[in-house]
């Protein structure tokens, strides 16, 4: 079945070539970083985590969002998601893979990565993150390929897949929660040390993931014969709407606690985010764009005319993904380091090699996504054309 990845038209191979070129660019940049060290990035002694770990945070949300289609379909028999489920699972696989790759490229001594398994530390959330991410990757690989294979043979999937599917639901929540716990247990970083961090992660995941899924479904509908169905897309839009709303609510709640208490510990972070701190205003434009996009998305999503119009829906979904990418992929990680424990404000600007490596990893994920979706499309085509 997987050999279908090699069967595609000109559009498919053009796309694959684009990803391969970008992967090559990333590899060249990474080989430089591997031999020279992380001084090629914009990281510093004060801001020691940046773009890479930000992408981990964002993508773990995208990966977990597969549960938003799996849960209604398998647990509540919501049949409209029938063709969407495989798309969700096959989105989760590259997302989790990219998460793990982003941690890998962030390491100072990547050749020693097996030390995490050889000498694990139970109290370290990073160990647990490695375990749950690997487990989720395996789960989705098995579930996705087995269910697709069963569909290809026009048979019900084997019985042992059911428990795996049920396990994948809380596991999806766990990968997110464990990643949030990576941050929210550190007394050194008051910006992260809030109980609402894990719920915020979940809310933004359930907004960005389904939004991305809608976009992918619309792209597939536009360029191929695959149509997940109007009902599925409509339901996903509803999920995105409420998730964005909850995300905004959580942000406002955080803003209230931080600003009303007027504690410098809390206020400083929001100052840096929205107006700048001690003259460092680099982050502010990004955050205002993020909030503007979020606001527009909320208004748009509540307008039925927008939801019914494919082009407008796609635009709103792009806006949601970009807004949450700025919030999680850019702001959330680096801002916790500003100011440093000794009160210094150090700006963080990703460098060209850093961006190149990021693009390379994304390209690798998108290549996997393209190939997996190609397999789905080919299987579906065969099913629909054979009498």
């Amino acid at each position: 079945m997987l050999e279908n990845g090699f069967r595609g038209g000109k559009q498919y191979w053009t796309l694959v070539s684009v990803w391969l070129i970008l992967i090559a660019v990333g590899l060249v940049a990474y080989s430089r970083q591997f031999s020279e060290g992380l001084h090629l990035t914009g990281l510093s002694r004060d801001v020691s985590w940046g773009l890479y770990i930000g992408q981990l945070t964002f993508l773990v949300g995208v990966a977990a969002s597969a549960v938003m289609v799996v849960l209604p379909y398998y647990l509540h028999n919501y049949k409209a998601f029938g063709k969407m489920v495989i798309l969700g699972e096959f989105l989760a696989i590259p997302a989790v893979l990219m998460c793990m790759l982003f941690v890998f490229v962030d390491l100072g001594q990547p050749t020693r990565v097996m030390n995490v398994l050889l000498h694990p530390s139970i109290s370290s959330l990073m160990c647990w993150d490695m375990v749950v991410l690997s487990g989720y990757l395996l789960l989705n690989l098995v579930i996705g390929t087995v269910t697709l294979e069963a569909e290809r043979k026009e048979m019900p999937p084997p019985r042992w897949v059911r428990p795996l599917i049920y396990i994948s639901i809380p596991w999806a929540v766990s990968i997110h929660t464990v990643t949030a716990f990576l941050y929210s247990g550190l007394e050194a970083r008051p910006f992260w040390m809030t109980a609402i961090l894990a719920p915020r992660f979940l809310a933004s995941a359930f907004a960005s993931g389904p939004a991305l899924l809608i976009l992918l479904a619309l792209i597939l509908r536009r360029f191929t014969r695959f149509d997940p169905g109007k009902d599925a897309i409509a339901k996903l839009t509803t999920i995105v709407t409420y998730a964005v709303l909850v995300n905004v609510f959580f942000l406002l709640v955080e803003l209230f606690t931080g600003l009303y208490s007027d504690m410098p510990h809390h206020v400083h972070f929001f100052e840096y985010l929205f107006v700048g701190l001690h003259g460092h205003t680099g982050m502010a434009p990004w955050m205002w764009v993020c909030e503007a996009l979020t606001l527009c998305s909320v208004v748009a999503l509540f307008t039925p005319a927008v939801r019914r119009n494919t082009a407008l829906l796609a635009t709103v979904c792009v806006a949601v993904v970009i807004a949450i990418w700025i919030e999680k992929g850019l702001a959330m990680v680096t801002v916790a380091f500003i100011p440093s424990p000794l009160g210094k404000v150090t700006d963080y600007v990703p460098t060209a090699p850093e961006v190149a490596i990021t693009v390379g990893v994304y390209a690798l994920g998108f290549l996997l996504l393209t190939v997996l979706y190609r397999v789905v499309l080919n299987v579906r085509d065969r099913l629909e054309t054979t009498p």
Partner: protein
Amino acid sequence: MNENRRNFLKKTAGAVLGIGAGLPLGQVAEGALGKHPTDEGVSGSTQWAMVIDIKKCLGEEVRQACSEACRKAHNLPDIPNTSHEIKWIWTEEYQHVFPDQTHPQQATGVREQPVLTMCNHCKHPPCVRVCPTQATWRRDDGIVMMDMHRCIGCRYCMAACPYGSRSFNFRDPDPYIAKDSNGKLPSDYPVRGKGVVEKCTFCAERIREGGTPACVEAVDAIPGAKGALTFGDLADPESGVSKLLRKEHTICRRPSLGAEPSVYYIV
């Protein structure tokens, strides 16, 4: 592919994987690896601590001597880009070292007082809690140690340290270490490579030989500055640190966090 070929390939792959995974288990180290005497190692009956007298460290030469001694003793690089600098013991202003003890009406002389800062060797170190490979751990004698061989450079410890005590090797430090005219390094201490995190280790290698940390030694050699840094055993009621802690008004950094530093400051 027809079904039989598929099944055959699956079974072969599984067999190969199984044998491949099992091979390392079959190889046992030949011969015997020897043993160690049981009375060696780190003793839990000692609790190392440091007391810093801020007033005696006001002079620039005292603090310079500390940093320089540490730099030379451990082959620390001198990297001009402050984003990538490596520092184990250095000077910061009082208001940054003790942000919870500062207020806007405090005298500038107090707020901007230079204070030596370093790893606090906490009793409940958050960095140890988060390290995924146990590359940093708290020894029985209170020192929070680093194992440079095991560190994977994930920098989780740097995110977790509430005091900003840790430095990461963003590049190979060797070109930045000041060598003498023969090209020799200042000391025999192993030079770290790129990609690992490092910090003050209370000169564990010197303590092992019964000595004192390099910074304390350097300060004691300056006339009039003896006692600016006192290093000793908290478990011994007659040690220098125990006596000072009983007698003087001491504070430590950010006590509300519960990390319980082992570095105390006489204000």
